[in-house]
């Protein structure tokens, strides 16, 4: 008997209109755990090498973890894994809410989608039944309407994950959204679905999730839930959620402001956690989570959207916008159009800086100053529909800056072509490294070092401890994606990680210590790194740098005015980081030895050829 897994992988071939299913390959469980781990392995195994992201060959993998949908704190996550249309590298993005639990209850560990549908379709899943249904009537519609119509059509207990016009128009940072606020935002999963002509996935599941020791699970999870509920920070957290970080970033000089030119925003007090809380109209949580942080907020004129640190900072301060009402509206616009709010805020701010520097002379109608809400809203629509300047920006900041040319590339804020998220990190070397080495391109969710840097490790210094901590956080955070849970229990309310090893054992019967689980994370990090190298000619160390703005431009204002991290220090820390991962310092790639140690022999052979060949060559 298999516990914690549904023992089923479904395959949907959109080109052939065919659905098949097979049992889960059990040998994946111990090394890769589930979720992002299963997805990364399936992508490595099944994607034709160097496939174009926007091509019928590319696959999108939906993968649940062993904890997804079970009685455990915030066991609510599903990973979407693919080759990104924006980075051309390994990509994943998780989604919370109730979709993942429904997916698991419907009986799936993974659903692998390939091919392209000849006409708009939505994937209908009711337990074992999977159908490709006509979506002509939904095509072109915003996310909120799609969700409403499908629920009306199918019933209220269906969970809907859909794309908006941005995904249809192949905007490379298009998202998928569920429950009008939870998103699989990053790396362009929405564009991949749009290319495949999949408007939505509607899912209902009512199966038992098999649990090895359900009494033990209740005992441990009850303890964990109580730990969270009784934490001193609980009340503050449910009031402000991640938006409480705005004020903190402002004080310490991390608040991305005007395309990350600055790290302090003069209107921060108008968009901080308290300002958000004043607009908040309800508490809303994801499945199995007792620390609600969705933050549904309503503007004075009745627009409702859900705020977190990222969308407030990226659509707010980073665009010079200092009004909570305006942020609520821009955020609603992005969710409805199906745009990642992080990349959108980054790209719009980039365009604003271009405008201020007079680099948009090819677009004489465009007026786009920092802080201009109406211009930002219009530009966001233009991006989603690929109109005018929007068409240029729809390919992401890296591509857009190349086309604009000149100095623009120097202030295009991305790593590996993925737009940097909401922490201005030129005065935090460890966080800069976290962004630089992130496995999907710049994304804070893979490692957030700032707290440790301002408290214990120091912001500017190079130390082995700092590099070690980046590796530890990267692995620990990955663990949540492998298990199918949200990291906030641990990150925000300090639930000890050890709980997750205990929960994993109660659910699956597998007696893994925390170190064993973290080793699985390490394995996934090396595997996805190898994927980048396999897919991109010349991939390596040079891809691991943060923009020049952080390494060379001093902060113009505030307490830390004049400061920035240096390339020399960054290089030193990067060297340490490679060594800690067992990767080659020069190439930045996992060594053959390291890959073999991690049980990834076939990956080593792909990168370095068969071992005996090299031995002979040496002789």
């Amino acid at each position: 008997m298999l516990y914690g897994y549904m023992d089923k992988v479904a395959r949907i071939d959109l080109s052939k209109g065919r659905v098949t299913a097979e049992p889960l390959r059990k040998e994946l469980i111990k090394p890769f755990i589930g979720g992002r781990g299963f997805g990364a392995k399936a992508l490595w195994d099944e994607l034709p090498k160097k496939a174009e992201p926007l091509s019928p060959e590319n696959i999108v993998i939906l993968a649940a973890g062993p904890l997804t949908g079970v009685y455990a704190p915030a066991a609510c996550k599903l990973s979407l894994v693919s080759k990104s249309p924006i980075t051309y590298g390994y990509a994943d993005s998780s989604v919370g809410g109730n979709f993942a639990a429904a997916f698991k209850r419907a009986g799936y560990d993974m659903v692998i989608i390939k091919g392209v549908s000849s006409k708009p379709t939505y994937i209908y899943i009711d337990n074992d039944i999977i159908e490709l249904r006509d979506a002509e009537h939904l095509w072109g519609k915003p996310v909120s309407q799609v969700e409403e119509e499908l629920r009306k059509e199918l019933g209220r207990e269906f969970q809907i994950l859909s794309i908006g016009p941005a995904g249809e128009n192949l905007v490379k940072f298009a998202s998928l959204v569920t429950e009008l606020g939870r998103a699989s935002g990053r790396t362009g999963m929405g564009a991949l679905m749009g290319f495949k002509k999949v408007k939505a996935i509607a899912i209902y599941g009512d199966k038992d999730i098999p649990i090895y020791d359900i009494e033990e699970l209740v005992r441990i999870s009850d303890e964990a839930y109580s730990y969270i509920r009784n934490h001193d920070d609980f009340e503050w957290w449910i009031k402000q959620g991640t938006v409480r970080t705005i004020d903190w970033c402002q004080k310490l000089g991390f608040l991305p402001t005007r395309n990350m030119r600055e790290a302090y925003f003069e209107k921060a007090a108008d968009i901080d956690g308290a300002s958000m809380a004043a607009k908040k109209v309800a508490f809303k949580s994801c499945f199995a989570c007792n620390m609600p942080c969705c933050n549904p907020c309503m503007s004075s004129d009745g627009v409702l959207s859900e705020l977190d640190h990222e969308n407030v900072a990226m659509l707010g301060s980073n665009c010079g916008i200092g009004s909570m009402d305006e942020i609520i509206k821009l955020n609603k616009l992005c969710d409805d159009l199906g745009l990642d709010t992080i990349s959108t805020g980054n790209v719009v701010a980039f365009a604003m800086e271009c405008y201020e520097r007079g680099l948009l002379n090819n677009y004489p109608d465009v007026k786009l100053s920092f802080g201009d809400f109406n211009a930002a809203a219009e530009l966001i629509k233009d991006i989603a529909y690929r109109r005018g300047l929007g068409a240029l920006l729809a390919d992401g900041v890296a591509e857009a800056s190349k086309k604009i040319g000149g100095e623009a590339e120097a202030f295009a804020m991305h790593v590996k072509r993925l737009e940097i998220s909401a922490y201005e990190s030129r005065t935090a070397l460890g966080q800069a490294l976290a962004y630089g080495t992130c496995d999907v391109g710049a994304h804070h969710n893979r490692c957030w070092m700032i707290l440790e840097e301002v408290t214990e490790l120091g912001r500017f210094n190079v130390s082995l401890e700092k590099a070690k901590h980046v590796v530890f956080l990267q692995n620990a955070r990955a663990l949540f994606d492998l298990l199918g849970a949200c990291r906030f229990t641990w990150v925000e309310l300090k639930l000890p990680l050890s709980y997750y090893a205990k929960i994993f054992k109660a659910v699956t019967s597998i007696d893994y210590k925390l170190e064993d689980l973290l080793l699985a994370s390490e394995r996934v990090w090396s595997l996805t790194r190898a994927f980048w190298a396999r897919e991109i000619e010349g991939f390596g160390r040079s891809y691991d740098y943060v923009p020049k703005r952080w390494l060379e431009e001093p902060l113009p204002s505030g307490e830390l005015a004049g400061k920035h991290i240096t390339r020399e220090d960054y290089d030193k820390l990067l060297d340490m980081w490679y060594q800690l991962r067992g990767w080659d310092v020069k190439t930045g790639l996992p060594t053959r030895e390291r890959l073999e140690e991690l049980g990834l022999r076939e990956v080593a052979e792909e990168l370095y050829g068969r071992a005996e060949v090299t031995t002979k060559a040496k002789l």
Partner: protein
Amino acid sequence: MTRIAVDESKCVGCHICELICSIYHFKVNNPKKASIKVLSKYPSSIGYEIHVCRQCEEMFCAAVCPVNAIKRVNGVVIIDHEVCTSCYACAQACPYNAIFIHKEVGKPIKCDLCSGNPQCVPRCPLGALKIA
């Protein structure tokens, strides 16, 4: 009379009540087998309906039961599964949509207050569920 009283304005939509309910009654992890149901108020993205038996004074469910399987026992409305013929007339008759159906369970599913110790109540994060 004991029952679970709900304050929907305090519901966060976590479904923890449903999870623990299915675990307590059926020893399975399956919120769709719970005798409490939380539904979001679509098309609005906020607000929840909580459906759970109110142990009504006037038992609409018992009134329609063709085999008299539903009785009040120590103040709690109980379906005697030995007697029940699974016609689900009770589920149809409940004015609060608080009697549920799951094909594997085969009998109407209804809150029995966990033999006097409702499992969902203490686990509700913000106190949307209370014993009244």
